[in-house]
């Protein structure tokens, strides 16, 4: 009897493997980064805790444990792609498309800012990843966590934990990744280009109509992206309608926070040693970094082109804001512009390009999903 009791009480310890210990350590590192370093704490803390819970033996809290709490969350929120879509309602309710609507030309930066996605896709294919995996890895370059999770949950569920952590980590590392590239690709004279502060504004009607019109057009062009684009534009329409303050408040705060918690926990609990401790994880992280660097390079090249064609009126730094790391990229552009010229104020234009990047990243993902769905059908 005594021995049975001892055995029952120690079976957790005796079932520990070195792999689960490594995963628990990784979970603790994420908790440290989230709490002490404040790197994406909203996501890294739930993910870190989820990893620890999911990898403790006999706890029944990994996503592989049928009927467990986190298994239910994972199946209902991640496998159904519900969580990333819900996050997009909150994102739409937070975004102000005003600067972009007042100066729509900056939208084109949002397209250039996605070029890295496609270059990374080619790289991932060259490294031997399958089609679905290559697309999912490439979308890390969108600098857009929910989009990366949405695509990975469709086509590379085995890489989802690594992709989601890479996507969110690199989003927060944009202020470190982008500036060296921006400086390397421009001379001080170009970075110091003064642009008029945002005098132009968009009317209330245009702000209200835009999410509706853009939603309909983009969904008609690439219906596969409808869940993301539809929710993004719904959130923005709620905000711009000005008559549903409570729904806007819930979307911006309660819904986003709750879904982020559930999303992080379920992704963490899906990071089991068997699917995370492998060389592909390191490749995913490396390719994600390359994707974001390529996005910045492509954006800067377009920025330089526009600087030349506008005869020095457009600051080429704006190109770096074409990624959808919102609003980090815009802040980086503002800071780099002011370093080169203290009188420079690029934030208004950069926010416009950055919101263009948000639309561009969803559009790029939707286009890839649409093409992919046709190829799978064939």
């Amino acid at each position, binding site marked *: 009897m005594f021995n049975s009791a001892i055995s029952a009480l120690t079976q957790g310890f005796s079932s520990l493997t070195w792999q689960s210990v490594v995963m628990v350590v990784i979970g603790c590192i994420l908790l440290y980064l989230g709490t002490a370093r404040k790197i994406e704490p909203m996501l890294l803390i739930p993910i870190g805790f989820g990893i620890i819970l999911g990898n403790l033996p006999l706890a029944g809290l990994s996503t592989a444990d049928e009927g467990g709490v986190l298994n239910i969350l994972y199946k209902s929120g991640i496998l159904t792609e519900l969580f990333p879509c819900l996050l997009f309602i909150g994102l739409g309710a937070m975004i102000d498309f005003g600067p972009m*609507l007042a100066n729509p030309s900056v939208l084109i930066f949002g397209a250039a800012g996605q070029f890295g996605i496609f*270059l990374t896709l*080619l790289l991932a294919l060259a490294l031997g990843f399958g089609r679905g995996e290559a697309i999912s890895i490439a979308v890390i370059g969108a600098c857009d966590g929910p989009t990366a999770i949405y695509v990975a949950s469709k086509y590379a569920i085995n890489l989802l934990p690594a992709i989601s952590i890479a996507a969110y980590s690199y989003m927060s590392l944009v202020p470190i990744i982008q500036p060296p590239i921006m400086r390397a690709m421009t001379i001080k004279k170009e970075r110091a280009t003064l642009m008029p502060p945002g005098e132009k504004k968009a009317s209330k009607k245009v702000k209200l109509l835009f999410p509706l019109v853009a939603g309909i057009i983009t969904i008609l062009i690439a219906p596969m992206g409808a869940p993301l684009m539809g929710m993004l534009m719904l959130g923005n329409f709620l905000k711009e309608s000005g008559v549903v303050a409570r729904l806007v408040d819930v979307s911006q705060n309660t819904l986003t926070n709750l879904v982020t918690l559930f999303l992080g926990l379920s992704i963490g609990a899906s990071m089991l040693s068997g699917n995370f401790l492998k060389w592909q994880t390191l490749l995913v992280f490396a390719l994600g970094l390359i994707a974001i660097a390529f996005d910045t390079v492509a954006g800067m090249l377009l920025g330089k082109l526009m600087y030349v064609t506008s005869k020095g009126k457009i600051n080429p730094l704006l190109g770096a804001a074409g990624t959808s790391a919102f609003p980090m990229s815009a802040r980086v552009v503002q800071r780099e512009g002011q370093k080169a010229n203290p009188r420079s104020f690029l934030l208004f234009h950069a926010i416009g390009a950055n919101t263009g990047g948000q639309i561009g990243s969803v559009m790029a993902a939707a286009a890839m999903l649409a093409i992919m769905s046709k190829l799978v059908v064939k």
Partner: protein
Amino acid sequence: MDLSFGLTMTFWGMGITLLTLGLLILIIRLMNKIYPYKNEDEKKD
């Protein structure tokens, strides 16, 4: 390497993204012409 897939995806993916954003630019310009910003908008805000 699945080169033809990669190139197809790059060509069409980038092309659709560029075209869609280009179309949106035209639509926004049109909407700005139809509903230009007026000072009353600021009062409504």
